[in-house]
């Protein structure tokens, strides 16, 4: 009864079919889990700030933990003048973290295992950082392609390599998150299939491995969200603090 491990990644429609000009806009299981994650984050913060004390209660303590974690991370990578970008980075981090974690529950759909979702998250970061770079530095933003101390005969090839690596940023951001989620969840389903097919006699071995793998996947869910946020901050640092 081993089902296909790729079956969990199918996006299917929930509810009525809604189509505009041939583009399918109906509500899918992907949209459902994005809604559930957003609702969870909003409820988490509302519950923590309902009655604000100087000595925090339990949920307020968790809110402050998350807040301080991202605030410290932004201070270390970009510096204190990136304060206006803090809500954006916090939202990106919490959204990706919740999407990754919810996907670990049984019968849940991992939204970030769809390349189109991670691609658009990465494109938002890339285009946003480019716009910020041009807004803050004018045309001088193009100086990031020309690092200082390059001998003049190497200049064209260094600029070409820098441009290519700059353009590969959204690709690497999106593929890293997508491939981690895809590989992790596929492995979980494959080992689950082993448990079923080995039955009572030998099923304990893949089961214990599945338990360890789920623990690893929880770590990977958190780590990938953190790495996405840190890399966004590093790209923002390139754009904001160009004079260093």
């Amino acid at each position, binding site marked *: 009864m081993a089902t296909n491990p790729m079956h969990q990644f199918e996006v299917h429609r929930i509810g009525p079919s809604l189509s505009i000009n041939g583009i399918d806009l109906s509500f899918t299981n992907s949209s459902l889990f994005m809604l559930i994650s957003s609702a969870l984050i909003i409820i988490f913060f509302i519950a923590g700030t309902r009655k604000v004390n100087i000595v925090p209660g339990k949920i307020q303590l968790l809110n402050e933990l998350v807040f301080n974690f991202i605030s410290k991370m932004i201070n*270390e990578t970009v510096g204190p003048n990136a304060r206006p970008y803090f809500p954006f980075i916090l939202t990106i981090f919490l959204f990706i973290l919740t999407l990754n974690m919810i996907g670990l529950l049984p019968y849940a759909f991992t939204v970030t295992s769809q390349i189109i979702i991670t691609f658009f998250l990465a494109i938002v970061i890339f285009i946003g950082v480019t716009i910020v770079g041009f807004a803050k530095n004018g045309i001088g933003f193009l100086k990031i392609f020309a690092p200082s101390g390059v001998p003049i005969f190497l200049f064209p090839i260094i600029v070409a390599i820098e441009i290519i690596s700059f353009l590969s940023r959204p690709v690497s951001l999106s593929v*890293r998150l997508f491939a*981690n989620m895809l590989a992790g969840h596929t492995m979980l389903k494959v080992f689950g299939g082993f448990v079923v097919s080995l039955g009572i006699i030998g099923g304990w071995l893949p089961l214990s491995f599945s338990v360890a793998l789920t623990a690893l996947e929880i770590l990977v869910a958190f780590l990938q969200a953190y*790495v996405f946020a840190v890399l966004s901050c590093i790209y923002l640092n390139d754009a904001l603090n160009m004079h260093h």
Partner: protein
Amino acid sequence: MELDAAKMIGAGLAAIALAGVGIGMGTIFGNYLSAAIRNPSAAQKQFPTLLLGFALTEAIGLLALVIALLILFAF
């Protein structure tokens, strides 16, 4: 050679890239360990850098997986 057989061989060859990833992982964690044992108080501050390095190296391994999947299923 049939296309399917060539695809299988291509996907298997793409997995050779994981050798480099293994070397990179060992380098990162080994260097962190040897530096952390020399200077334990400064090690805690660099832990996020360690996680960042681990995730970036892991991404290369996953790029190899994506190439293997592309060869197998997309072409």
